[in-house]
Every structure is written in C-alpha cells, then in structure tokens.
C-alpha cells in the first residue's frame, strides 16, 4: 500500500512537473486583461536565445539558462508590454541573474524584486522574471504590476539563495551591492581584478562579490566556495602569486601602489579577498567580520 501510494505520488508529481513544463508560464498568463491582449508568444531555449537578444543571451547562458518563455501584449494606442520569464537550472542561478540586474533590494514580488515605473524584475524559485512597458503611462504601470502579481502567484515553488551569500557581513554592505556568479567574466563587475580566470571559477564554484563602505571609497569583498579545500588552496596560491606575492602569515595585509589595502585568505573550501581597502583598519575590520561568518 505504501509503495502504491509512493508510486502514485511520484506519478502525480511527474504529471504536475510535465504540466508545468508544458504550460508554465505562458499558459498561465492572461490572454486578455485591461485593454491588452497577447499578440506574440516567446519561447526560446539554450542558444536559440541568440535569435531574440543576440549577444546579450550570454548573460543568461552564463547562469545556466534552460529556456525563456513569455509574451508581448499590445492594445490600441497603448504602450507594448513584454513579459520574459527566464528558467534557470537552479534557484541560485535565477538569484544570480537577479543580482546582475537589481540596484536595490525590494520584496514586493517573488523572493526579491525591484520596481521602476516601466520595469519590474524579480526572482522566484528557478525563475528570473522581467515585465516591462515600452513607455510609461498610468495604464502601463498598472498593467506591469498586475502581470508581475500573476506570475508571482503562478510560480509554485520558492528556492534558496546560495549559502555563500549568507557569509557576507551586513555591516557596511552597500544596498543592492553584491553579485553572485560562477563565470569569471563577472569577477570584474565592480572592480577590475584580472583579465582571465585567475581563481579557477566555474560551474562548481559559488562566488559573491560585494561592495562595502561609502560610494566614493568602496572596499570590495570577494568570497568563493570551491568544491573542496584543495581547490580553494590552489586558487589562493594563484591569487597570492599574481596579486600580492609579498603577502605572508606575518604580513597578511598589503598596501598596494595606489595606497589601497589588499588581503586574501582561505578557510576550508572557501577563499576570501578584500580589494581596494581604504585603510589597514577598515580592511582588517572587514576581514574579521567576514572570517567570523566563515
């Protein structure tokens, strides 16, 4: 009996998953609402996304895009609306794309969102969602809010933020000031560090880069989780050799040629580094806050 229940449950779950795959999300979007109706449907997977957004597709592909669905809404004399729902391989990748896009953290839609008059973006579960209007009118602003609510409710599952993000100290963290990623291209998102994959980032590593301090004097904190301590130690050696070979246990904070401070360390399978430290005191304080989290 228990086995039969389990099988039925698994079949039901499979059926639900298949249904979601087929129908979600385009099937859940209203065909018509307010003065709008769907005029085009969007459905792209993998590299087909190039057909839709050319090279910009690489942003999503670098986070493991599964497919993008959505639609365009039009109406007489009103701004076009576009819904794009990017389905990623994991919730943490959806979260990563979200961190590439948002400037501040809100929680109006999904598990994190940012709203503008013409644009709403949010993440929930494996999905990164954008809803935007061609231009801003009171009607288009209300319409994109409505669609964001519909999509938010239609996505059944939430997902966890990558654990590495929890390692960031809250004190001094700039609002919306961190980025989660795997691909080395994003290592330079806030601050040029290297023109190559200096610290062996790949799909198996979770990296977070964060801004601390005032806008005119940022400190940048990098934390990377590797699959094991050996890989973390190897990346640490490469960073040390290429960035601050003079760094030692006796001299863990290095003042660079531009008078900023740098440090790097490992703890277990994690690598940490602070770039552009304004002073030794600030760098040391951020290091202590971080190491206590790690």
């Amino acid at each position, binding site marked *: 009996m228990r086995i039969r229940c389990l099988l039925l449950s698994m079949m039901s779950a499979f059926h639900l998953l298949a249904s979601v795959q087929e129908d979600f999300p385009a099937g859940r979007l209203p065909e018509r609402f307010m003065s709008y109706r769907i005029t085009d449907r969007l459905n792209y997977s993998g590299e087909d996304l*190039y057909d839709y957004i050319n*090279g910009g597709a690489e942003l999503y592909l670098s986070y493991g895009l599964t497919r993008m669905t959505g639609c365009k809404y039009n109406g007489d004399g009103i701004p076009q609306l576009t819904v794009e729902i990017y389905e990623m391989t994991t919730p943490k990748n959806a979260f990563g794309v979200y961190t590439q*896009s948002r400037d501040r953290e809100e929680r109006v839609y999904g598990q994190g969102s940012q709203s503008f008059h*013409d644009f709403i973006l949010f993440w929930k579960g494996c999905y990164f969602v954008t809803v*935007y209007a061609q231009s801003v009118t009171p009607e288009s602003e209300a319409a994109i809010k409505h669609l964001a609510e519909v999509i938010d409710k239609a996505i059944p599952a939430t997902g966890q933020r990558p654990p590495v993000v929890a390692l960031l100290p809250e004190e001094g963290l700039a609002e919306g000031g961190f980025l989660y990623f795997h691909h080395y291209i*994003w290592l330079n998102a806030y601050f040029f*560090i290297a*023109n190559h994959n200096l610290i062996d980032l790949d799909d198996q590593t979770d990296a977070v880069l964060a801004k601390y301090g005032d*806008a005119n004097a940022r400190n940048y904190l990098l934390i990377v989780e590797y699959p094991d301590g050996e890989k973390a130690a190897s990346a640490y050696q490469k960073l040390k050799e290429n960035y*601050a070979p003079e760094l030692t246990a006796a001299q863990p904070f290095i003042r660079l040629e531009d008078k900023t401070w740098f440090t790097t360390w490992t703890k277990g399978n994690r690598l940490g580094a602070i770039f552009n430290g304004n002073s030794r005191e600030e760098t040391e304080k951020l290091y202590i806050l971080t190491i206590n989290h790690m």
Partner: protein
Amino acid sequence: MEKFITRRDLLKRTALMAVGSTVFLSRPLSAWAWADAAKSKVVLIRNRQLFGGGDQPDPAIAAQMLDEAVTTLTGKKDAREAWASIVKPTDIVGVKTNVWNKFPTPEIMNTLLKERVLQAGVSDENLSVNDRGVKNDPIFQKSTALINVRPMRTHAWSGVGSCIKNYIMFSPQPSSYHDDSCASLATLYDLPIVKGKTRLHILVLFKPLFHHRTAQDASEEYMWTYSGLIAGFDPVAVDSVGLRIIQGKRNAFFQEDRPLNPPAKHIELAETRYHLGVADPSKIELVKLGWDEETFV
C-alpha cells in the same frame, strides 16, 4: 605570447595614474603596443540645439554636424570635398547600420549618409543601407566601400555596443565571437566581405544608453541627451572615445565608479592583440567641436 594581467600589474606599471579613472584601470592590459604609431584622428561634435526641446533630432542640424565632422576629419575645405575624398563615383557602397528595435541607428543618419554618398556621385543601384541582411545583400557582397554607423550603448556581454561590434552581422556565425565577453571582435575586420573596405566610422551619441538593467533593456531612464557624433577612420579610436564618454556618464549618474559590467575589453584588445587601431587615449588626436559642457572626454 600575451600575458595575463591583474589589477596589481596595472598598478605597478601605472603607479602615477589616478586610481579613480576606472575606464583605464578597468582595461585588461596597460602595455599599449603602438608607442610610436601615428595618432588616430577622431572628431567629436556636439550641438546643444539638436533636439530643440523635442523628441527627434533636427535633420538640418544633424546634417550640419555630420558635414562638419567629416570636413574636420578629412582636413578638406568643405563638405563636398570631404565626401569626395571618402567615396568615389565608381564605388559600390554599403552603409552598415544597426536596426535593434529598441535602440536603432537614428533614421536621419541613414538618410544623411545615403544622401552624401549619392552626392559624391555613387549611383543609387550601387548603394545599400543594411544591418542583419548584409551577408546576403548583393551590394554588400560586391562592395568596394563600407560606411559604419551605429548608436552607442552599453551591452550585457561585450560591455558596449559600438563601431567594432557593429560588424558582427558580417560573420557567418555571430555567436562564435562571444567567447571571453567578445574579446575577439576586432577579427571581424579580417572577414573578406569587410577587410580593407571601411572608409568611415560614425558613432552616434545623440542619446546614448549608458546603463541597462537586463540584456533587453534600453530604458529612457538610462539615456541622456548628449547630442553628439563621433567620426573617425579608426574604429578602435572611435570606440575608445565613446567608451570614455559612457564611463564618465556612469560615474556621474551613479555618483561612484561604476565600471561597465563586463568591461569592454574588446576595444583595448583591438589594439593590443589584434592591431586594428588605437585605443590608448594618448595615441588619439581628439578634435572636439561645438557644445562642450559635460563632454566627459
């Protein structure tokens, strides 16, 4: 062999450089290769009256800006002579524009370039303006001259979309240039359909896009009325100037160093790795004409 570069390498080499000049410290390489090369001339022209308080550029002012930029660039005495030095009546001319629906080349620029090429004596049947169809366009296939025109914007994978990148539609497989955030875009200029043909690059900064939230984003919130055109013979120098302007605006708007994400490394590599032109500002003769407030360069 090209060396991998870290920020520390740059700091060691450029210890006297202002740390805040993100656009240069954001660059992956600092060892500019052409120390003895002649300077590339680039003309930046702006006109505060271009939009005249409206949404659309004034065609007469746009024409005046284009002619003045080209005259200054060529060093000729007037626009007629300048255009005559750029295309000959016997040329078969392709104007490579950009039609991305959210941020296309302003139509007035396509119109003006067609007019100027025709006025230089090129016959109508030997002239085409195209973007996504260039590979199959008979005029482009047999072209003897190309003119490259597109608007300046940020880009989610290459940092910026500007003149170098505008030739990606000449590639049989554009996605093959995406590796390492489009580092090798300069090699587009080696494609047979392109090589040695480009007579003029025009980067349009009427209302440049200096930021995007997602790859598909081109919001007016992140455009500003710069009312400028950049003209040059060297796409790398043209893009280098445009890049500095975009970076300057980003820093001013966000009130902090806000590097392009990812950095537009293909512009510098176009010089240091592929030798297509010069990106180093010290190797560029920048001539600035017209409105000079908040020029950012």
